[in-house]
């Protein structure tokens, strides 16, 4: 068992955002958390990464990663874990980078924060990783600022950075919802490919059941901070038990197209 979350509750100030969430994930497994916006799905993976917004905090439960309860971690332990054993891909990776520094500078800084590589080695490794994410002309990308790249390119950079240290767990927060359908499919494929090669487990948060169905072995449906339904993805897709899941499935009209693109 790589990750085990038991009875997790998170609140923002007075407001209870997530209640009694249980989930577990094996090494190399892929889990999708699906739900409408505000259902607390992002909050769950942010809690796993110890990266909750300012007023948010975990009020109950346990998050066990590799047999160790993360909630007892010190700041330094979090820092060592984040970006190496666990990494995150955000919805808009471009805005997750410093706007006044080049991609290369930030990639190298990230690598050097977690390894003893020198600047030149780190730059070479970063370029190699960008190439692995099928970015054309990675040397040029290294010299660009985030605002100079398209959404799809920024997203690839984000994935490349997150997967650089071959993390055991990748947390992906709506990694493709800001992209057009064609780019979505490409980015997801490339991300899955690298994850399979490196044996990385994934928790993907999405409102796109099409993406969830393509990627995940298991789907977890959330609403207003609680788990509504949970099970293998084929079961959830073919035989949804709750009305909410049925609604979600109907609310994705392009599901056939996406399926078509992805398969």
């Amino acid at each position, binding site marked *: 068992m790589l990750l085990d979350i038991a009875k997790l509750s998170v609140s923002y100030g007075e407001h209870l955002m997530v209640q009694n969430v249980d989930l577990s994930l094996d090494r190399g497994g892929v889990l999708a958390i699906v739900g409408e916006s505000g259902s607390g799905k992002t909050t769950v993976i942010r809690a796993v*990464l110890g*990266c909750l*917004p*300012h007023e948010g905090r975990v009020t109950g439960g346990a998050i066990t990663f590799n047999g160790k309860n993360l909630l007892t971690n010190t*700041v330094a332990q*979090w*820092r*060592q*874990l*984040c*970006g*190496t054993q666990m*990494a*995150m891909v*955000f919805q*808009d*990776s471009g*805005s*997750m*980078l*410093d*706007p*006044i*520094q080049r991609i290369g500078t930030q990639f190298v*800084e*990230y690598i050097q*924060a*977690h390894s003893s590589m020198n600047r030149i080695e780190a730059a070479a490794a970063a370029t190699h990783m960008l190439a692995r994410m099928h970015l054309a002309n990675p040397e040029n990308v290294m010299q660009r*600022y985030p*605002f*100079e790249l398209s959404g799809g390119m920024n997203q690839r950079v984000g994935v490349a*950075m997150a997967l650089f240290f071959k993390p055991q767990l990748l947390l992906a927060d709506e990694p493709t919802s800001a992209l057009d359908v064609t780019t979505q499919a490409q980015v997801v494929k490339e991300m899955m490919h690298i994850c399979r090669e490196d044996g990385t487990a994934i928790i993907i948060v999405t409102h796109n059941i099409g993406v969830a169905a393509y990627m995940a072995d298991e789907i977890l449906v959330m609403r207003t901070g609680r788990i509504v339904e949970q099970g293998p993805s084929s079961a959830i897709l073919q035989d949804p038990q709750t009305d909410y899941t049925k609604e979600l499935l109907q609310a994705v009209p392009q599901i056939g197209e996406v399926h078509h693109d992805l398969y």
Partner: protein
Amino acid sequence: MPFFVGIGLCKDVFCIHKYLRLLMMKYLWIFYFKLKGMIFLKKNELLYRLAQMVITLFGVTLLTFGLTYVSPGDPVEMLLEVGDTIVPKEMIEATRHQLGLDQPFYLQYLRWLSGLAHGDMGLSYSAKMPVADRLLQGLPGTVALAGTSLIMMLLVAVPGGILSALYRNRFWDYLIRGFSFFGVSMPSFWVGLILLYVFGLKLGLCPIAGGVVTWDRMILPAATLAIAMGTKYTRQVRTAVLEELGQDYVVGARARGLPMRSILWRHVLPNACLPLITLLGLTIGWLLGGVAVIEMVFSWPGLGKMAVHAIEMRDYPLVEGFVLWVAVFYMGINLLVDCSYAYLNPHLRKGRTH
């Protein structure tokens, strides 16, 4: 032996010189290309800004001229009547004619403009010397005071603001904000007088009488200015840093496991600098115009005190010259700030090439 050592040394020195010169050349080249790139990108805008500056200067000088022209008081009487002496009317008229004050307004202004075009700002009545010389006399005091107070201010405001932002709504933040509120509320001339009373009179740590530019005499006026500016800037730095700390890239950097120290120094502070530089430009312009109130309180020989005296004496050419200096400098600094802003912010710099 010593002879050879000597030659060896000479050779070494020569080599170092050569090396240094090469190094200097290299950096000069880099600097040159950077500058060229910067100006090339902003060429049209630079020309536009310069034209704008010239028009503004015309407006400013004309307005000042007009205001002094219509303001009550006669420079000739001020000049000639010392104490209770009664000056014959003919003498007043003669002096007025000599100074050109009997001419119509537009002629006086044109004469002043043509003098300016020849690099002659006229003669100061009260100081009895060329205006340019009088301005140059006041300049060192003002520049020294501006520089010192600015450095003192930044040394207090930048760490204070950062600390306040990092410990938002906790003890340090409340303490710093309390101090800054206290400082903002106090008028600076009053702070100056209190400082003079405590450190000058009671403790005897600093000289009270001013009049000359020396380091020990500069401490109190610079501190007064630094308090006045620093309290405002602490809040500005706090706001700017808080704003940046709330940006997504900070979350991204934390998720990548970067240490907080490097997030702060390498990402948050450089970004927070951008809005602060604009503000700093305005402050520098303001300081270089001379801070009249502070200079009067400490009888500091700067431009501000000179300007007040010039207005009291209806010394039109000196007032005019002073206003011109302030306007030119203010606009120059702001132009420089805009250039640096475009240079520091890649978005602005690169935006123009696309």
